[in-house]
């Protein structure tokens, strides 16, 4: 109802170019930014080298701004898709509150700003990784692969997986097995997370012409893919536990969470559409909700390990 009223007032065109501050902030995809901030923060905190709190705060902020800038560029390029999908019709560009040119200008300006300032504040490796993340998300995923391959979610997941690696680079100035496995954790988590969502929001992507796996290969294949990626995810999650950032607490949480996630993926795999429609996609919704807790629990466990280390409890001793 509120969406309808927004659309009515904005279709007149009177507010184009006169967006409020919140509309520009919405271009930065605040919800995605919160995940970026959290995982980058964990990557920075679990790193072996300490960082001055002001430098850490500023670095996380610049990473968040860079992530937000890529979100604005994504909304600029995907404005045509966003106009067709119910879920995205109230975004600033489709609703007419912000023009496409403004979104592009904001995204480009903030991208350059965030990368340069991260490089100056932390180090050039961190700045480079942030620049590569933005390039990957905007050019490789949004412009090229999203509309071309049903594996778009897999590739797009890589962009979302970089923040803990950047956080680690802020502290260490480099890349290591720990940061690569943190990257791999979010990377392998993304497909089951989004495909579970796609299984119960089926109409939207098809209407927009985005080649989601559910549309191109069918829902049965999607269920199989979810199970496959979940098994890979479990391996990555456990492997991260035996590195220097892992420990008994992390491992205990990882084993429990992955057992639950595999069970959830198995339940989704065994079902067909009739079962799914009959109970309003109960298992699919359940797996999607569990995936949100899953990622938070793993990164939270890494934080606990890092927090216990000064007291002689964290890590493998």
């Amino acid at each position: 109802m509120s969406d309808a009223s927004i659309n009515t007032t904005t279709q007149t065109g009177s507010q184009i170019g006169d967006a409020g501050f919140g509309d520009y902030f919405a271009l930065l995809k605040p919800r995605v930014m919160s995940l970026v901030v959290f995982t980058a923060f964990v990557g920075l905190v679990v790193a072996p080298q300490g960082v001055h709190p002001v430098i850490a705060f500023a670095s996380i902020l610049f990473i968040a701004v860079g992530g937000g800038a890529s979100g604005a560029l994504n909304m600029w390029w995907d404005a045509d898709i966003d106009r067709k999908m119910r879920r995205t019709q109230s975004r600033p560009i489709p609703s007419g509150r912000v023009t496409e040119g403004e979104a592009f200008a904001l995204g480009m300006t903030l991208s350059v700003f965030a990368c340069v300032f991260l490089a100056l504040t932390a180090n050039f490796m961190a700045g480079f990784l942030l620049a590569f993340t933005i390039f990957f998300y905007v050019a490789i995923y949004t412009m090229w692969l999203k509309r071309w391959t049903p594996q778009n979610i897999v590739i797009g997941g890589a962009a979302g997986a970089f923040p803990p690696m950047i956080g680690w680079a802020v502290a260490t100035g480099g890349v290591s097995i720990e940061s690569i496995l943190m990257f791999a954790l979010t990377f392998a988590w993304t497909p089951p997370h989004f495909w579970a969502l796609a299984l119960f929001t089926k109409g939207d992507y098809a209407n927009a012409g985005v080649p989601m796996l559910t549309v191109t290969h069918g829902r049965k294949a999607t269920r199989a893919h979810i199970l496959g990626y979940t098994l890979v995810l479990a391996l990555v999650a456990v492997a991260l536990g035996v590195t220097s950032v892992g420990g008994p607490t992390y491992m205990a949480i990882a084993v429990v969470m992955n057992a639950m996630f595999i069970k959830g993926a198995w339940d989704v795999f065994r079902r067909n559409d009739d079962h799914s429609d009959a109970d309003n996609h109960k298992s699919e919704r359940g797996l999607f909700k569990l995936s949100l807790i899953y990622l938070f629990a793993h990164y939270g466990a890494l934080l606990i390990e890092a927090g216990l280390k000064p007291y002689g409890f964290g890590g493998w001793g």
Partner: protein
Amino acid sequence: MSFKEDHELHKRRFSRNIGLGLVLIGFVALVYGITVVKVGELYQPEQGTEVAE
């Protein structure tokens, strides 16, 4: 009716200006903080060297 629309327009512009102003003030404070830390880090090792010498 038109007055109400103008009022909404001005409210939007005002929120934009206030928001941008706060962002700029925050940015100045942030750069100041970073500068203090960086300059502090720059001089710390030299002081240490002087003491050692």
